[in-house]
C-alpha cells in the first residue's frame, strides 16, 4: 500500500512551498555569509568567535581528590590539628554523614607543601611531577558545586544538571564545533583499568543527535567493542555489504528525504573507517623509549592512567575534539593516608607528562587540559582521627581544578578559601562558570550554544554561568 502522507514532493509542490524559504536563505546569506558555510547535519556551523583552543583533554578524577592534601595549602590546619572544627566556621549546609558525626577534629595536610616554579604556586609533595610544571598550570582554588553526592555532582560537572538526560560537555562541543578527523569520533573516553570511575551516562549526547555521543575506547586489543569484523568476514565482504546497504538507504532516502537516514549512513561509514583508524591510534609500539620514560613505566601497560595519557596525546594529535580520561577511587572517606599516595603515584607523572608532551609538540598552543574531580573534601576527619589514619568527607563548597594550555594564564593561582579551606573568600567559580569558560576558550558563546528540545532551548550552562575572564591569557 502506498503511503500518501509521505509522497515525494512534486515540482509544483516544491516551488509552491519553498520559494519563500529560498528567499529567506539568500537573504540570510547576504546578511551573514557564515550562515551558509560549513553546515553539516545536526550541528552548528563552527565557532562563534576566534577560538583559543581547538580541543580539550579532561583528566577527570572521579571520587573527588582532597584539595587540602594536594593544592589548597592551609597552614592553620596544621596548627589546629586534632582540634574540633569551630561551628562558626561551618555554617551553610552539611551532609547527612557530617551531621551524624559526633566530633569533627581538624586534620592537617598529610604532606608538606612548598611553593613551586617561578610563579610560587603552592603544591604538596604528593604531586612531585605536577609540581615541576607548576608554571604551566592555572590553579583554581575557588571552585564550588551544587551536589554533595558523586553521581549528581559528576553529572552536574558534565551536563550542568544533576539529573541525567542532558547532553554532556563533550557532546555539546562536538555539536558546536564538529569533527577535525572524519575517521574518529569527536568525543572519546578512556578509563583506567582497576580504578574505573565515571559511567557511560557521562558520555551521553542526551537529546543532541547521536553522532555527538562519547565513545569509550577500552584498553587492550579490542578498543571499541563490536567494531571488528566477525570471524569469516573479510574487509572486502564488509565493504560490499556496506555498498549494498548504501544503495538501499539511498533509495529509502529518495522516497522519504529524512536526514536521519543520511546520518545513519555516515555513521556506518565512520565505523568502517574506524576499523583501521582505531587500531592505528591505539597501537603505541612506534613511540620511542624516551616518551615512555616521560610518562612513566606504567605507560607501557595498557589500561593504566599513564598509558591512557599517552593515548590522549595521540588522539589530540589526530584532532579529536574532546578526550576524557576517568580515574576513579579518589573517594577517601577513611584510610586517606594509605590510599591517596597510591592514586597520586598513578596520575602525577603521567598528567604532567601529557601536558609537557603536548607542549613540546606545539599542541598546547591549541589544546586545553583540565584536571580535577566533582567536588572537594572536608578539613576535618570523617570517622576517628588516629595517630596515622583519618578520612575526609565530601565538600562541595570549595575545591580545586587545574587547567593548562590554550588561552589560560600560566602559573596563576586563582581564588582563595578561608583558613580552614571551608568557604570561598575570593573569586568564586561555579561549575557553570567553569563550563562557560571552557566553551569560551573553544570560541563558543555558552549562551548561544543551545539546542531546542521539547519547546525549550537548552544550554550546557542552563541559564547561568559567567566566563571567568581573569584566568584567560
Amino acid at each position, binding site marked *: 500500500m502506498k503511503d500518501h502522507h509521505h509522497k515525494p514532493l512534486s515540482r509544483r509542490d516544491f516551488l509552491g512551498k519553498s520559494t519563500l524559504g529560498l528567499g529567506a536563505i539568500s537573504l540570510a546569506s547576504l546578511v551573514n555569509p557564515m550562515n551558509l558555510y560549513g553546515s553539516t547535519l545536526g550541528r552548528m556551523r563552527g565557532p562563534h*568567535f*576566534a577560538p583559543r583552543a581547538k580541543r580539550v583533554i579532561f583528566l577527570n578524577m572521579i571520587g573527588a581528590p582532597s584539595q587540602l592534601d594536594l593544592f589548597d595549602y592551609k597552614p592553620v590546619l596544621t596548627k589546629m590539628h586534632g582540634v574540633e572544627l569551630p561551628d562558626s566556621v561551618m555554617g551553610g549546609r552539611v551532609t547527612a554523614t557530617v551531621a551524624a558525626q559526633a566530633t569533627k577534629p581538624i586534620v592537617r595536610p598529610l604532606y608538606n607543601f612548598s611553593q613551586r616554579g617561578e610563579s610560587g604556586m603552592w603544591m604538596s609533595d*604528593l604531586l*612531585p611531577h605536577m609540581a*615541576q610544571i607548576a608554571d604551566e598550570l592555572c590553579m583554581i582554588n575557588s571552585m564550588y558545586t551544587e551536589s554533595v553526592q558523586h553521581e549528581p555532582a559528576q553529572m552536574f560537572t558534565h551536563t550542568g544538571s544533576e539529573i541525567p538526560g542532558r547532553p554532556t560537555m563533550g557532546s555539546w562541543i562536538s555539536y558546536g564545533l564538529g569533527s577535525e578527523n572524519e575517521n574518529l569520533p569527536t568525543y572519546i573516553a578512556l578509563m583506567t583499568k582497576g580504578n574505573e570511575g565515571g559511567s557511560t551516562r557521562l558520555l551521553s549526547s542526551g537529546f543532541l543527535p547521536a553522532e555527538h555521543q562519547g565513545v569509550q575506547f577500552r584498553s587492550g586489543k579490542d578498543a571499541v567493542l563490536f567494531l571488528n569484523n566477525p570471524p569469516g568476514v573479510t574487509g572486502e565482504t564488509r565493504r560490499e555489504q556496506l555498498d549494498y546497504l548504501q544503495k538501499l538507504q539511498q533509495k529509502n532516502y529518495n522516497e522519504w528525504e529524512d536526514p536521519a537516514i543520511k546520518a545513519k549512513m555516515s555513521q556506518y561509514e565512520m565505523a568502517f573507517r574506524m576499523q583501521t583508524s582505531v587500531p592505528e591510534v591505539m597501537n603505541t609500539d612506534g613511540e620511542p623509549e624516551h616518551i615512555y620514560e616521560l610518562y612513566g613505566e606504567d605507560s607501557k601497560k595498557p589500561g593504566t592512567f599513564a598509558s591512557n595519557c599517552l593515548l590522549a596525546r595521540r588522539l589530540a594529535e589526530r584532532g579529536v575534539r574532546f578526550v576524557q580520561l576517568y580515574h576513579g577511587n579518589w573517594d577517601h572517606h577513611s584510610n586517606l593516608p594509605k590510599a591517596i599516595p597510591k592514586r597520586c603515584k598513578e596520575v602525577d607523572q603521567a598528567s604532567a607528562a601529557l601536558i609537557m608532551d603536548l607542549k613540546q609538540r606545539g599542541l598546547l598552543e591549541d589544546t586545553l587540559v583540565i584536571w580535577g574531580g566533582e567536588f572537594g573534601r572536608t578539613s576535618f576527619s570523617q570517622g576517628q582521627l588516629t595517630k596515622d589514619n583519618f578520612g575526609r568527607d565530601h565538600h562541595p563548597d570549595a575545591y580545586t581544578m587545574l587547567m593548562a594550555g590554550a588561552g589560560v594564564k600560566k602559573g596563576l593561582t586563582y581564588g582563595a578559601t578561608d583558613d580552614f579551606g571551608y568557604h570561598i573568600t575570593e573569586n568564586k567559580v561555579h561549575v557553570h562558570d567553569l563550563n562557560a569558560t571552557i566553551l569560551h576558550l573553544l570560541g563558543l558563546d555558552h549562551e548561544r550554544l543551545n539546542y531546542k528540545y521539547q519547546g525549550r532551548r537548552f544550554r550546557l550552562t542552563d541559564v547561568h554561568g559567567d566566563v571567568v575572564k581573569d584566568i584567560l591569557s
Partner: protein
Amino acid sequence: MEWDLFLGRFHPLLVHLPIGFFILGYIFELLLKFGYRSIISSRKIIILTYTVGLLAGIAAALSGWLLSFSDDYPLSALDDHKLLGILTLVVMLILIFYQIKVPAARDTLKLLGSTIVVILIAATGHLGGNLTHGPDYLVEYGPGILRGSQMGLLENSEVNPDSVLIFQDILKPVLQDKCVACHNSEQSRGGLKLESYRDLFKDAEHGKPVVAGNPEKSELFRRISLPAEDDLAMPPRGNSIGYTNIQILKHWIAEGADSLAIFKSDAISGELIALLIRDYGLDYSPRPYYEKVKADSLSEGILKELRNGGFRANYLGENNFLLDVEYGGDSIGEREIQLLNQVSKNITFLKLSGCKLSDEMLEGLSPIPHLTRADLSKNPLTGHSAAYLMEQLHLEAVNLNDTEIDAEALGKLLSESGIARVYIRNTKVSEDEISSLSQNYADKEIIAGFTFEKVPEAKSVFEQSQEE
C-alpha cells in the same frame, strides 16, 4: 565671616516658601471658582495667602541676589533666573492689587492672572534648579527624546575601541559638561577657558591646565583630583568629574596629551582597562592579533577549491574571516602552494606538517600578512626557510620540530622577527646551542624536549613523625 554669602545660601531654602504659599492660594482660588463655597467662602483668604507668598518671594529674591555675588554660577543662566524671578514678583504684586482694588472683576479674569503667576513661578524655579543641579539633572534618566542629546560615538554598542579618540570622544564631552559653563570665552573664571583643545595649553592664573607628559604639573588634573572639601577643588559644586574620567585624563596627559591619542592595550593599566569596561563599555584587554585585524570574507568558490585541494579550512568565527588552514595530504606541490596563495590575505593559522615541504616551495608561498601561527614540523626544511619566516610580520609561534633547521638560522630568526615561541625538537640545534640561545633571547620561548628531574619518594607527616 561673609554675611552676604551666609545669608545668600539660605536662598535655596527660602525659595520654597513663595512657591508653597502661592500655589496654596491658587488652589483656594480654584475651589472658589468651581463652587466649593463650603470650603472657601471668601476671597479674603486667597488674597492673604498670595500676600504672604509675595513677602516670602521678596525675601527669597533678596537672598538670591546676595548669593549671585558668589561667582559660582554661569552669568547668562543666572541673569535669566534673576530677571524671571523679579518679573514674577512684579506680576504677583499687580495681581494682588488687582484683586483688592477691582473686586467686581470677573472670577475668570482673576484666575487667568493667577495662572500666569504659577507658570512664571514654575519657570523661575526650573531655571534656578538648572543653576544648582545642572541643566541635564531633571531629564538625565528620562527617555532620549527628552534629553535631546545626539547619539555620541560611545553610545553605539558596535564601536571599535581602536577608533575612540581619548580627547575628542571622552574628555571633551566631560569638559563640556562639567567645566565649560564657567570657563568659556564670555566668562573665563580664573583666566581659564576650556572650550577647545588649544585652550588646554594656554597659561591661566594658576598655571597651564595641561603640561603634556606631566599630569602632576598640569593644573587641570590637580584641581579636579583635589578632595571635594578643598576650596580649590573643581568643579566647585555638583559631582566631581568622576574617578574614571580623572584616571583617563591622567593617562592621556601622561601619554603626551595628543589630540588624536587612542588607548593602547599595552600602555594602559589593568585598573584603567577595568574602569573603561565598566563605565564606557570599551574593552581594551590585550587581545591576540587575530582578533583585532579584520579580513574580508572569501568567495565560496575559492574556499571550495581549497577544500577540494586537500586542505581543511575554517573561518575563525562568525564575523572573523581569518582562516585556520591545514593541509591533510602527505605531499605538497606547486598546485597546493598556488591554492594557498589565493587565500594568503586571510590565513592566520597555517599547518603544513609532514608534507615534504621544501625550502623552495616555502619560498614560492606569497607573504601572509596576518599569519600568527605556523606549524611546519616534519618537513625537510633547512636554515634557508628562516628567510621566509622573518618576512611574516605578525608571526608569533612557529613549529619547526623534526626539520633540519640549524642554530645559526634559528638565532637569526629570533633576532630579526617578532616570533615569541619557536619549537625546535629533533632538529640540528644541539642542547648546548639551545641553552645559549635561550640565554640570549630570554624574552622568547625556545621549546625543545622535556625531561623530569628525579624526585625522592615523599613522606607523609605521619611517617616523618614516626621516624623522629
